[in-house]
C-alpha cells in the first residue's frame, strides 16, 4: 500500500512537471507549477521530512506561485497594449534540439549510474547529530543543524536573501512611475476574508516558529508564512509596503544584525565565531530565530512588492516602452 501510494505520487509529480514543461499556455504552466509544489510537499512528507513539507507548502506552493502569477499577469497586461490578444500563449522560438537532447539523456544516464554504483558511506552524520544534540540547546535535529552545527551556512543564506532585496530595491522604478497607480479597489469579500485569515496566519506563523525548537518548524517556515500574510494584505488592498517604508530597512536586516552580533560577541570572550555561551544556547537560538522569522518574512514580502508596476498601472505603462 505504502509503495503503491509512493509510486502513484511520484508519477503524478512527474506528470505535473511534464505539464509545466509542455504547456504552450503560460498561465496553465504556472498553475501546473503551483500543483507541482503541492505534490512536492506530499513527497517530502513521504520522505520523512515534515520540515521540508512545511517549507514547500509555504514557499513552493504559496509564495513562488504568487510571484509567478504576478509575472504572468504583468506580461499579459502589457502585451494587451501591443494589441496581441493571445497574450498568454508562448510564441517564442525554440532552440535546436541537439543540446537539450544530449544534456537530458546524458544527465539521466550519469545520475542513474551514480545511484546504481553508489558506495556505502563510512561516515554517519545522523549519529553525530544524535550524540551532540543535547549540547545544541534545541531538541529538533534540523533546527540544531541549521542554527548550531551549521549556523555559518544559515548566516550566509540570510546574506543571500539580503542581496536579493538590495538588488530589488536598486531596480525598483523611480517614485514617479508608481504614484499614478490607481488606489486599490475596495473588495468586501476580500476584506472579510483578510479579517478572518490574517490573525490565523500570524498565529500559525508564530506557532511554527515556536515549535521549531522541539518539532518540525522554525524560522524559515515561520518567515514564509509571515511573508504570505503580508502578501495577502498587500493583495487585499492595504498598501503594506508604504506603511512600513521607514521601518522596512531595519526589519529587513534585523535578523542578520542580531545573528551577526551574537556570533561576534562570543569572540570577545575568546570563544570561536558563532558559538553560544553554555546554558544559553536554547534561549539565544530562539531569540535569533524570532528575529530571523521577522526578517525573512519582510524580505520575502519585499521581493514580491518591489516588483515593477504591473497590470494596475496599465495606462502609465506605455511610457516605459521605447518601441
Amino acid at each position, binding site marked *: 500500500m505504502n509503495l503503491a501510494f509512493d509510486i*502513484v505520487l511520484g508519477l503524478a509529480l512527474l506528470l505535473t512537471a511534464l505539464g509545466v514543461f509542455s504547456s504552450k499556455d503560460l498561465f496553465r504552466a504556472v498553475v501546473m507549477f503551483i*500543483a507541482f509544489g503541492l505534490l512536492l510537499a506530499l513527497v517530502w512528507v*513521504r520522505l520523512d521530512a515534515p520540515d521540508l513539507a512545511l517549507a514547500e507548502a509555504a514557499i513552493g506552493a*504559496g509564495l513562488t506561485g*504568487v510571484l509567478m502569477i504576478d509575472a504572468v499577469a504583468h506580461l499579459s497586461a502589457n502585451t494587451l497594449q501591443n494589441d496581441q490578444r493571445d497574450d*498568454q500563449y508562448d510564441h517564442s522560438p525554440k532552440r535546436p534540439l541537439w543540446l537539450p537532447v544530449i544534456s537530458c539523456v546524458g544527465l539521466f544516464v550519469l545520475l542513474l549510474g551514480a545511484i546504481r554504483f553508489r558506495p556505502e558511506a563510512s561516515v554517519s552524520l545522523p549519529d553525530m547529530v544524535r550524540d551532540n544534540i543535547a549540547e545544541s540547546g534545541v531538541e529538533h535535529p534540523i533546527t540544531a543543524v541549521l542554527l548550531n552545527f551549521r549556523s555559518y551556512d544559515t548566516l550566509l543564506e540570510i546574506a543571500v536573501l539580503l542581496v536579493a532585496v538590495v538588488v530589488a530595491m536598486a531596480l525598483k522604478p523611480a517614485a514617479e512611475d508608481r504614484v499614478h497607480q490607481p488606489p486599490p479597489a475596495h473588495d468586501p469579500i476580500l476584506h472579510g476574508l483578510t479579517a478572518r485569515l490574517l490573525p490565523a496566519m500570524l498565529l500559525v506563523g508564530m506557532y*511554527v516558529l515556536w515549535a521549531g525548537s522541539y518539532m518540525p518548524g522554525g524560522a524559515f*517556515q515561520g518567515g514564509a508564512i509571515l511573508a504570505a500574510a503580508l502578501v495577502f494584505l498587500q493583495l487585499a488592498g492595504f498598501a503594506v509596503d508604504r506603511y512600513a517604508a521607514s521601518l522596512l530597512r531595519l526589519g529587513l536586516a534585523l535578523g542578520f544584525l542580531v545573528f551577526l552580533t551574537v556570533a561576534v560577541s562570543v569572540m570577545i570572550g575568546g570563544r570561536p565565531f558563532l558559538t553560544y555561551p553554555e546554558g544559553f544556547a536554547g534561549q539565544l537560538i530562539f531569540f535569533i530565530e524570532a528575529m530571523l522569522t521577522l526578517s525573512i518574512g519582510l524580505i520575502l514580502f519585499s521581493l514580491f512588492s518591489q516588483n515593477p508596476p504591473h497590470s494596475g498601472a496599465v495606462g502609465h505603462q506605455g511610457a516605459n516602452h521605447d518601441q
Partner: protein
Amino acid sequence: MIEAHTAWYLASFVLLLTLIAGLLRIWHGPNPADRMLAAQLFGTTGVGILLTLAQAMQMPALNDVALVLALLATIAMVAFVKRMSPQQGPTKSQPEDQP
C-alpha cells in the same frame, strides 16, 4: 492497529487519485478561472491527504503542514483574482483553449 493504518493509507490513496483527477482539470481548463479553481480544489485535497497521512504515518507534525497549506492555498487564488481578473484590464479577452 495495523488495520487502522491500512485504512488510513487507503483513504489517502483514494484522495491521491482524486488529486490526479484535479490535475486533469487543470490541464484541460479551458479558461484561466477553471484552472485556478481546480488548483484551489487541489490544495483542499492536499490538506485532506496530509491529515490522513498524519494518522497513517503517526506523525502529528503533519497536521501543522496541513494547517499551513490550508491557509496559504488561498493566496495564489487571491493573487489570481486581483492580478489577472478581467476587470483590471477592460479589453482583456478570455483566451480560448482547445483541449
